[in-house]
């Protein structure tokens, strides 16, 4: 006889050993908090939005000089354009994320469920990438503005020889690079740990199709 058939024959017998939860037990469970991946993903995305919105707005409220600078830089169409773009992008991402969450349904088949979780994760990922790109653009841009508007800085840079200018550029590039790398590693770690098992199971299902 097939091994599994032996197990099948006895499968229901083991049920007698189960602890039977009463209605009250089940009521209590209903109101407990879920610890599912989707819930965690949801919290991470909220934190993500909060973090990037804070990063972008906090200096405005905290530093008067920054605020003044910002007001003058809005006169520049490029800077204004970028700011409007980032607000539009945030709104688009909130909408996409909302849609992605709505599409996660536990009653889908396993593969489809996993795919909709991955899709949600991707939306968050793209949002992070967008912010990193914005950092990447805004650092040289703000240097340029500083150069244009801050006479002291302008004179300093103008007085530099080419080796010094190169040095300054190199330092800027390295700092930006390190900053981006830290962010990137941080995200890899969070999502790596959170979705490790899901990835493994999804691969297992995918493998069947080949």
């Amino acid at each position, binding site marked *: 006889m097939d091994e599994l058939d032996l197990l099948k024959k006895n499968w229901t017998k083991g049920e007698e050993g189960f602890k039977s939860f009463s*209605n009250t037990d089940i*009521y209590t469970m209903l109101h407990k908090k*879920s610890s599912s991946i989707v819930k965690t993903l949801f919290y991470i995305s909220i934190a993500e939005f909060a973090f990037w919105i804070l990063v972008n707005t906090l200096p405005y409220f905290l530093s008067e000089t920054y605020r003044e600078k910002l007001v003058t830089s809005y006169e520049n169409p490029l800077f204004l354009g970028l700011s409007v773009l980032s607000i539009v992008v945030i709104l688009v991402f909130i909408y996409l994320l909302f849609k992605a969450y709505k599409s996660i349904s536990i009653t889908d088949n396993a593969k489809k469920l996993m795919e909709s979780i991955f899709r949600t994760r991707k939306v968050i990922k793209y949002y992070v990438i967008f912010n990193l790109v914005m950092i990447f653009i805004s650092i040289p841009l703000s240097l340029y503005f500083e150069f244009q508007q801050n006479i002291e800085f302008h004179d300093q840079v103008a007085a530099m020889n080419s080796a010094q200018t190169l040095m300054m550029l190199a330092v800027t590039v390295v700092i930006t690079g390190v900053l981006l790398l830290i962010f990137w590693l941080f995200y890899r770690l969070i999502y790596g740990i959170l979705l490790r098992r899901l990835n493994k199971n999804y691969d297992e299902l995918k493998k069947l199709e080949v």
Partner: protein
Amino acid sequence: MNKELEHSFVEQLQKHQNIVHKVCRLYTNNADAHNDLFQEITIQLWRAYPKFRGDAKFSTWMYRVGLNTAITLYRKSKRRIRTQEFDAVEFKIKAEEYDDTEEQQLKLLYQAVHQLNDIEKALVFLYLEDKDYREISATLGISEVNARVKMNRVKKKLRTILNP
């Protein structure tokens, strides 16, 4: 209305709770983890319940939500504890290898099934629950042919685990 819904849900789940227990038995290895997974499945079932239209049987619907929770949503992995327990149990079973009663065989089989990966366990579970390949394929989102192929591989794998 909400109270009524809650009441009918609790009644039905109470009646069919063994399905959830069986999923937990397959995917966890100690009582704490078992109860933890049971609770998570209950929460997920309750969340999905307003959309349950009754066109499928409550129990059938439970299989899907239960398995999905176990293989996709559930986060608390107690891997370290699991392997330790395994070693201990396996050692004990080896010592009694010549006791060839059906009960012993069953015990070994359970151990072997526990060593399968999450997807393989899902297949075994549905098979043990007497589901046909159509339903297995619909639950996991793979084709019927692939479900059959995979099932055969799982059987082979079990045989290898049992007779190394």
